[in-house]
């Protein structure tokens, strides 16, 4: 089954690159008019990038360590047993 952290990680990394890339182009007037003079494209782009990479890192770690969040089992399709009620 798909680990959602992977496509999420990739998507946010891509978005982060796009946004911070755009922010590297100087445009002081634009930022003065909207975001109080701060180059939010660059800064927030880096935030998205960091988030995306963090997601990918978590996905990788889950795979290698086979760790889980909150002690649930790694999801599989056939898990029908009486004690978990399904």
């Amino acid at each position, binding site marked *: 089954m798909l680990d959602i952290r992977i496509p999420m990680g990739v*998507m946010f990394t891509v978005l982060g690159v796009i946004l911070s890339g755009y922010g590297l182009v100087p445009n002081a007037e634009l930022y003065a008019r909207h975001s109080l003079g701060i180059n939010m494209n660059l800064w927030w*782009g880096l935030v998205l990038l960091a988030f995306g990479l963090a997601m990918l890192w978590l996905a990788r770690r889950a795979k290698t360590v086979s760790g889980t969040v909150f002690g649930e089992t790694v999801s599989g399709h056939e898990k029908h047993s009486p004690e978990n009620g*399904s």
Partner: protein
Amino acid sequence: MHSVALHHVDWVILAVYVVFVLGIGWVLKRYMKTSTDFFLSGRSIPAWIAALAFVSANLGANEVMGMAASGAKYGMMTCHFYWLGAVAAMVFVGVFMMPFYYGSKARSVPEYLKLRFDEKTRGFNALSFAVMTVFQSGISMAVLASLMETVLDWPFTVSLWVSAVVVLVYIFLGGLTSAIYNEVLQFFLIVLGFLPLVLLGLADVGWWDGLVAKLNAVATSEGYKAGAWTSVWANMDATANNPMHVEWVGMVLGLGFVLAFGYWCTDFLVVQRAMAAESMSAARRVPVLATIPKILIPAIVIVPGMIALVAKPHAGVFDLKQDSPETIAGAKLAAPRWGLVPPKLEEVTQDVGGLPTKVKQFKRDAQGNLERDYNKTVPMLLIQYFPTGLLGLGLTALMASFMSGMAGNVTAFNTVWTYDIYQSYIAPNRSDQHYLWMGRMATVFGVVISIGTAYVAARFDNIMDFIQLVFGFVNAPLFATFLLGMFWKRATGHGAFFGLLAGTGASALHTAITGPTGHWLAQVQKYGSDMAQNFWMAIFSWTTCFVVTIVVSLATTQKKPDEELRGLVYSLTPRTGGDEHLAWYARPGYLAVIMLAVTIVLNVIFW
């Protein structure tokens, strides 16, 4: 209103998002082998994913746009939807009700009613829920399309069909699993898309203290005490003391109890995501885990609304280009007093040089004052604070929120239609593959019906008020039915059915004889606001259902023997263990208590 030009980078961001959500649907298609896979994700979703989907499905267009609008209109009291209503209800459904939903092996909420009560109760719920859920879906879409029209000059029709098709495709392909996974993605996108808005907005108004000071000025100029927009409880002693015109009794019972529990405990849109969990323990944990993001969401949806009321518009934001001469003069009037919330416009037919022509003018109330268009709060904030680039992200985050809400409705609809209406009444005993096919067809016509409903929904103004109205009609009585069904074994099928009928009837009657909305028959009482009216309708409706269910149950015989009710009623179900091996913070009961305590603290901080 300032019309925004989107540049390539904004489109690219939106395109990236669309590609990913469709791609996820495509990848998951091969896992959709049985109807259980399609409608219930094969009951295999890990708790944290289901929990985020649980919150995200609820965080649709109505939430994001509506909460911001309410934040501007009513201030911090809007937080009650989260800190009074949602958390207690979510904790209750997780700890006390999931054992019955999950343990009964019911595939939907109406199916639980069939197992517990009888066929007619199931039918009533299935039909009313199916109608309500496509209505909600239509409302979400109407909000999206209006926004796109306002901000991007996209025709209403185009936005509607584009967003509908994307959701339709990814659900058609990957069923509930696709909806859930995309909801997780959408959740993070919404948070990351709106957080910069909050940060920039707060910086602009002088951070929290500056915001409070400015809101106090608004409150006193409107004739209230200083804290009317910034206190959660302090001004609820009387209806005249706060802009929502609700006092604490109506709020606690109407919203806190009836509406919140009615939604979180019985609405299949959210319950479905907990039912998709991989085990009983996970299913109980899902709603409780979901309270963690839930209590934080006011920061990104309500606070922007409050900021919008007092922020000083940047140059060029109110740059009206309409034809009416009044608007040019009026623009200077509107902006300073109301921050970013624009005045409401209406289209009237006037006689211009002998020819009737459609003219846009400001809408005025009975006293000749301009009315504010709160629904435009979010687009105005985006226009003000987001430069090109970030604007693309903000709009994509909005699209994501609309799609997550709509996906919630569509998956709930296709399941209830296929199992509770089609399989039960139209074509029983067909193969599983046939029902899987039907589920896909239901996805298609469910979306098509929603589109039609969107045109209807586009007529109403404060959307949150309308949503609560619709909820109340159907949801308020429903929670009484479930409460009695799960905790009182003597409740019978006849009792449940007639209780529901009576409760729904009471909702309709209350709306028919009170104002400000409805009052089709008479106006026995006029409440201070639509919301106040809603809360009281919910209270009367719930009480009617509760009383009628008890009376009729006692008057009829219980047709189901105890063995049949085992696993469906509290007193006949053995207490489940199963979570002793988990760390303390992961056990539903402990986590529930912690979250309730945190919520109480929040209520006190913002008193």
